[in-house]
């Protein structure tokens, strides 16, 4: 592959690559650094690329390895991340002032429930063991086949299937217990509460009913609801959506809060 062709194809993949790294690291800086390092490493090793896999698979493999080096040294988040970060946000006037400023001034500062649902999944998925989190994103959001994921993560098909099944099952269980969008007894209403704050003139319930996830909730098919949640993530580019700046600000807040929380609660 020539450098020109590589550069051209890289431009078509970079958006997905960057959003993938953001979603597994929850860090804008890490996403930018790792994508940059992936480009340099791929360019350096371009002569070794024989086309045994697609270029996208090869690049995701390089990026995943770079991200794993970072992530292995970090503690995994907890399932109740949204409770912890909500409490921190309520005690942080500056966070809300900044968020409201973004909401009022940025073209990417709209509040969209779908974007918050995607952010919420990103945060809670960090409670999964790393391999499970990576497999869930690669398969469910970036639509790689199991055989491609074995190449990306350098593991066996059996283990990819195990990580996927276990990660998916755990996420279904967590959202079933927590998410008020799909379970009336769910403890987390953040996407509705924030809609009330950022879009006070909207009827929140009407707005939420526009998403298939909420519309289908009463049928109670957990697997299908998970698929609908994944569809939301597939449709959103966290760096380019109309709500991206607001959600990235929120994600950055959550990451900082969780890093402090995990450090404080270190055994």
């Amino acid at each position: 592959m020539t450098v020109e062709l590589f550069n051209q194809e890289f431009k078509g993949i970079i958006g997905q690559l960057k959003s993938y790294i953001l979603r597994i690291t929850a860090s804008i800086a890490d996403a930018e650094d790792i994508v940059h390092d992936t480009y340099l490493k791929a360019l350096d090793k371009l002569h070794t690329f024989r086309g045994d896999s697609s270029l996208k698979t090869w690049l995701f493999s390089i990026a995943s390895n770079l991200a794993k080096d970072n992530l292995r040294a970090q503690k995994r988040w907890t399932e109740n991340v949204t409770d912890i970060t909500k409490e921190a946000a309520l005690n942080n006037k500056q966070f809300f002032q900044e968020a409201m400023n973004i909401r009022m001034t940025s073209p990417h500062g709209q509040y969209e429930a779908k974007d918050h649902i995607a952010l919420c999944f990103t945060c809670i998925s960090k409670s999964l063991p790393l391999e499970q989190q990576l497999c869930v994103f690669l398969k469910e959001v970036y639509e790689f086949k199991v055989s491609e994921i074995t190449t990306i993560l350098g593991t066996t098909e059996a283990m990819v299937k195990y990580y996927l099944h276990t990660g998916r099952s755990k996420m279904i269980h967590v959202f079933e217990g927590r998410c008020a969008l799909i379970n009336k007894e769910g403890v987390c209403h953040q996407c509705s509460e924030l809609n009330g704050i950022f879009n006070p003139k909207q009827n929140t319930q009407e707005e939420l009913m526009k998403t298939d996830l909420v519309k289908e909730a009463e049928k109670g098919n957990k697997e299908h609801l998970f698929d609908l949640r994944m569809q939301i993530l597939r449709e959103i580019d966290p760096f380019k959506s109309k709500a991206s700046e607001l959600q990235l600000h929120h994600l950055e807040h959550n990451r900082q809060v969780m890093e402090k929380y995990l450090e404080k609660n270190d055994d």
Partner: protein
Amino acid sequence: MKYLITILTITMMTTATMAQNGKATTVKTTFHRETSVSIEIKADPAIVWALLTNASDYPRWNSTVTSIEGNIALGEKIKLRTTLDAKRTFKLKVKEFESEKKLVWGDRQGNRIYAIKKNGNGTIACSMTEKIGGPMFPMYSKKIPSFDQSFEQFASDLKKESETIMSSK
């Protein structure tokens, strides 16, 4: 003598075949009790091993285990709670850990042994054996409930979960 060996061989072969049907068997002596179950599973041994060694994941797929705290790795201590005796927490040590082949945990009273063997036809035989006992065993043996039903359920749950994962796309 030849006749005896033939009979013994047939008996052993029959036992080995039957042992993979998920039916538990218990052998009692004065000082020991041993319960075993073996089941044929159509899955990669890595999947079965991953299920058997991921402590926090047990309650999700195994209806006989309420919780396992700790890390299932050689020399580690774990706390096991089961539906068989809901009030009791078993404090156990992982004594053997041979990847995708053998796992043993136990305490002073006994050991539980998990063994995985390839059958050579794309299936594996997974067995679980627990031997309990000792000099004081006759004094408390009647208080220990039968493991048979719990073992059969464990084997059935393991087979179901392993084969579901194996057949996933």
